């Protein structure tokens, strides 16, 4: 069961700190948990794991490909390695290693990919992965999870650790908007209906969940009833829920912190096209490279605000 916070605001604690505290906790019981990082230990807070368990943390330096291969080898000996680097490097920089060394070998590596999409903010276009979900979706066996806030991250980490297979965790490392109350429970592969509605379903992931909920508030004032669904497991996708939403609300808008190609929007469109075609729009980056700036600036720059979602909803409703 989930419960939403009454007032959505930025979390006072950083995602990375909640994550690493929880991993340290799990590692207390399980010596097989291993941390690998590629010279971003201070960005990802993994140095704190290293302080606690120096024998089980490895900083390989600026060698993402090597890190993925080492993780594969460790997994082959029964370890549960967690790799850490920015999402751009975790995919673009080491894709073949993820594909062959890890996935093709049917190994068990958890890839923590930080700074996805526009949350790369001040690192700018070169560091802004807007295509990483597309890369990962194309690799069989890979599970893709995008935790929305610290409560979800904390709640999912044990399942991420003990669900065998490669899992790509696409996650902001800094403060995220709190959506869920403490004590909410999450299940990998199961989408969440955050708000009911009958005219349209907004399917959102990651930082776009807060925008989607804001959009639903805006729409409500105009008499439009929008359902908001959070798909945090992008692969395997909760097809059943999406099909149901298409059938019940007759229109879909997706919202993602990613290129509209090959990400959540594409995945949802595939399901709808195959099962229950309804009018649809995708909110996200429209096949552009990233840019530098604050997350708020970038949301506006790439038309990813609550207002943009609301506008998409109105367009999609006109095609109903």
């Amino acid at each position, binding site marked *: 069961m989930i419960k939403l916070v009454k007032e959505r605001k930025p979390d006072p604690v950083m995602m990375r700190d909640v994550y690493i505290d929880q991993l340290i906790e799990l590692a207390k019981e399980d*010596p097989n948990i*291993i941390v690998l990082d590629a010279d971003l230990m201070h960005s990802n807070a993994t140095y704190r794991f290293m302080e606690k368990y120096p*024998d*089980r943390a*490895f900083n*390989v*330096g600026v*060698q993402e*490909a*090597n*890190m*993925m*291969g*080492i*993780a*594969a*080898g*460790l*997994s*082959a*000996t*029964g*370890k549960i*390695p967690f790799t850490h680097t920015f999402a751009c490097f975790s995919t673009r920089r080491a894709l*073949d*290693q993820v*594909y*062959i*060394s890890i996935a*093709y*070998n*049917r190994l068990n590596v958890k890839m923590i990919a930080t700074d996805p999409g526009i949350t790369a903010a001040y690192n700018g276009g070169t560091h802004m992965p807007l295509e990483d979900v597309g890369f990962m979706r194309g690799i069989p066996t890979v599970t893709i999870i995008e935790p929305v806030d610290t409560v979800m991250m904390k709640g999912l980490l044990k399942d991420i650790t003990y669900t065998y297979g490669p899992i790509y965790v696409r996650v902001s490392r800094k403060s995220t908007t709190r959506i869920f109350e403490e004590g909410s429970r999450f299940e990998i592969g199961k989408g969440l209906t955050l708000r009911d509605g009958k005219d349209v379903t907004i399917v959102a992931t990651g930082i776009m969940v807060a925008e989607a909920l804001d959009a639903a508030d805006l729409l409500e004032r105009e008499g439009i009833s929008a359902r908001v669904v959070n798909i945090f497991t992008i692969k395997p996708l909760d097809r059943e829920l999406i099909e149901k939403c298409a059938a019940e609300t007759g229109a879909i808008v997706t919202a993602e912190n990613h290129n509209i190609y090959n990400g959540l929007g594409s995945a949802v469109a595939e399901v709808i096209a195959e099962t229950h075609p309804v009018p649809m729009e995708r909110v996200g980056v429209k096949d552009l490279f990233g840019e530098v700036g604050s997350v708020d600036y970038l949301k506006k720059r790439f038309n990813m605000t609550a207002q943009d979602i609301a506008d998409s909803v109105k367009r999609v409703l006109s095609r109903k």
Partner: protein
Amino acid sequence: MLKEKEMKELEIFATKIRIETLRELGYLGFGHIGGAMSIVELLAVLYGKVMKYDPNNPKWEGRDWFVMSKGHAGPSLYATLALKGFFPMEWLKTLNQGGTDLPSHADRNHTPGIDMSTGSLGQGISMGIGIALGHKLNNRDNYVYVLLGDGECQEGQVWEGALYAGNTKLDNLIVFIDYNKQQLDGYIDKINSLGDLRAKWEMFGWHAQEVDGHNIAEIYEAIQKAKETKGKSSVIVLHTIKGKGCTFAEGIELNHHMKFTKEQVDEAIAVLQKELEEKERDLR
């Protein structure tokens, strides 16, 4: 030191591996013959003498691991594993046929005795480092043997691995380089020379040796020295000949992947068969 008899037995084993590799590839009439033939003596030493393994339990925890990073040499490794009883010799007839458990590149999902899937070059060293680390963390004394191709050493990841392992104390990691001086498109020195490989690895902090990769005693001795070297990873550069011992492949520039006729295969096998009989007679 290997006893004279042991050495001769390993030479016989090597010749058998060559014969079975040729038969295996012969069913199809094409394949990665050059790099499969150049590593045969190494395979004979590893599987005939050095490595701990159990063909009836290929995933036995106490085994030594072998990561053949140059995955395209699958055929001679399969011949070796079949001769050692990991799977029936009959399987060798199925190489690369649809539905086979012996695909052209080594694949742990299919073949008993294959520890890691390889084929995309450069990745085996990192996997080997991970396995070696895993063994250390699990307090197991298993060795990890990684075989790199020489052309493969043009991949940047090899040097990422070399740098990182050079800074660790993974003395349970032993890397071989099949330095046969040829890659798919021809002679390495004409394409992108590797220069002094031994010196390069030494500079990266490894215990490095160079031996004649077709000399069983030298390979064995080098492995013993590598094992005696504590606190460091070891590399053994094997000077080899691409296509070694195969009449129609040895000495040809483009012998990485070849087509061949039944007659060529039969002739090559006949030569090896004769050699085998002489060696067996000599042993008796």
